[in-house]
């Protein structure tokens, strides 16, 4: 970012005809209709977003990142996320997910390409892009010695929200996320699940339109995870665009409408969750048997496995019928008392795509 040591016109608001001017890091507003007037920013509210012209919450074009050691983490990815979407960005470790998120939130310098958040370019409209972006990182990157409530007050302050305005909002989020009783405790005294929720509260305190969550439910117990899912679904229903990276693929399948899979720095799949799952050719069903069997029953056209005497696994290709399987099992006098898919369907697809042997 260039040094703002002299007057620099930062941006023009097309709707209002007003120009925001930076003087030594502080801003003022000049109104085209009244050229002699220069208002300090406290007297002027910029339009909240250029939302009428923009339909994407996130636009990434030809984004490349090569680290100093020569590692090419991103090889020119293109990605768009529509406003209001609940979007999953999946990929194995080292695929480029965290680099992408790092670039979005200015923790990683990109090598080339462009990124827009709610229509604002992160290079040219740095401030406005940041105002619309909330990030829940993987690591607990808050001051462990600071009180829980102060962490949120500080974050609000960094986003230009005065304490008086931030206080009721912070109370709301702390209560909603079950942290209100811990507001005066130092953050290091919180449990892992509470710290995770504190990260979410911190990311929401400036009311972002785009919320990015990097593995938000890692190390969180099932009950709490379900609670987080409900919470995220709720804020998504209220209009916040959400991008999620996760290793729990059932999470992506349950929550996200659209999915992108990234591998070796390239996007290898990008479509709706439903379409992606439809491309899955084979599903493995695990059948719990009523009585033990000695040998694998032969069912024409289906591959079966017997991990133990009470469990039969059957691979069913797209277009094949489960009725045929049950008919054949009945003929072999094998009784099934329950059945489930071996892995989450998205997980099966993910593994096949990222291991390079997509069927």
């Amino acid at each position, binding site marked *: *970012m260039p*040094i*703002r*040591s002299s007057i620099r016109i930062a941006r023009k608001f097309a709707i209002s005809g007003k120009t925001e001017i*930076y003087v*030594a*890091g*502080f*801003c003022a507003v000049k109104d085209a209709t009244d050229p002699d007037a220069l208002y*300090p*920013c*406290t007297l002027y*509210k*910029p339009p*909240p977003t250029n939302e009428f012209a923009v339909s994407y919450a996130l636009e990434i074009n030809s984004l490349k990142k090569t*680290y*100093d050691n020569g590692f090419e983490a991103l090889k020119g990815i293109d990605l768009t996320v529509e406003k209001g979407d609940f979007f999953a960005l999946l990929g194995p470790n080292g695929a480029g997910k965290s680099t992408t998120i*790092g670039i979005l*939130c*200015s*923790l*990683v*310098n990109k090598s080339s390409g462009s990124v827009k958040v709610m229509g604002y370019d992160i290079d040219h409209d*740095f*401030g*406005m892009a*940041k*105002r619309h*972006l909330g990030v829940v*990182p993987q*690591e607990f*990157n*808050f*001051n*462990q*010695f600071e009180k829980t409530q102060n*962490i949120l*007050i*500080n*974050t609000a*302050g*960094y*986003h*230009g*929200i*005065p304490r008086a*305005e931030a206080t*009721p*909002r912070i109370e*709301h989020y702390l209560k*909603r996320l079950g942290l209100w009783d811990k507001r005066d405790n130092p953050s290091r005294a919180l449990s892992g699940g509470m710290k995770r929720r504190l990260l979410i509260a*911190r990311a*929401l305190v*400036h*009311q972002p339109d785009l919320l990015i969550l990097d593995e938000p439910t890692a190390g969180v117990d099932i009950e709490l995870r379900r609670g987080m899912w409900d*919470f995220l679904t*709720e*804020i998504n229903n*209220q209009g*916040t665009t959400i991008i999620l990276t996760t290793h729990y693929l059932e999470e992506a399948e349950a929550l996200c409408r659209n999915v992108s899979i990234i591998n070796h720095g390239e996007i290898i799949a990008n479509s709706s969750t439903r379409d992606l799952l439809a491309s899955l050719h084979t599903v493995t069903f695990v059948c719990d048997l009523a009585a033990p069997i000695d040998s694998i029953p032969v069912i024409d056209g289906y591959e079966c496995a017997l991990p133990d005497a009470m469990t039969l696994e059957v691979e069913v290709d797209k277009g094949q019928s489960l009725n045929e399987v049950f008919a054949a099992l009945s003929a072999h006098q094998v009784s099934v008392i329950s059945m489930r898919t071996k892995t989450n369907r998205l997980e099966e697809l993910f593994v096949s795509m990222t291991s390079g042997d997509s069927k």
Partner: protein
Amino acid sequence: MSLANYEEKATDFGNPNWVAYQTIVRTEVRRFTRIWVQTMIPPAITMTLYFIIFGSLIGRRIGDMGGFDYMAYIVPGLIMMSVITNSYANVSSSFFGAKFGKFIEEMLVSPISNQTILLGYVTGGVARAVFVGIIVTILSLFFTHLAIHNILAVISITLLTAVLFSLLGFINGVYAKRFDDVSIVPTFVLTPLTYLGGVFFSIDLLPDFWAGVAQLNPILYVVNAFRFGILGVSDISLGWAYGILVSMTVVAYVIAVRLLANGAGVRS
């Protein structure tokens, strides 16, 4: 009120950098006052020992220096020593701590300008330097009488020095990768330069060659300009002192802003 999202969606982002600046300063001041045993007490004890040993015990045998009794002569230098070490240490350790604990990312992901981040940290360093400077000044009154010769010089030199060494501390914090890295410069550079910077003696006592070498030491200008403000005597011209201090401050500021803009030490 909705369950998940706070219903007052509209946010007055007003003057974001001003609010952010106040937030950083408040956080910084709260940090050094919360750990006052580490930040306020050590300089008070160290300086009291200097007053007792160098001022009272040894100073009585030294006699006058620059036309003043030795205790009165060394007090301005010791106050400046406190200002220098505390402004430097505050910013270098606080910024490195934020990097180490990764909570510097809270600022990097927010819309604050780099200059606001820098000014916030520098103001925190200046605040601690002024706090400690006042404590040391009050302690010195138990040992000597201080008559201020030029209050404007005292205030301006104190603030300029605190700003300069806060900036240098910030640059140190940016480059530091381990906790050791924030103590190397104070131990091996600042302390020797301070001792050789005319805190305890007038450079008139040095042979010509070493008096010339001493003039390369920026702390000499700080100490003498501040001594002029208190006692009205100085080994060097006040104009030179201000010129060098202001120049160094501008250079340090530009370097610090550039380092932040390039993301040195904080972005990959």
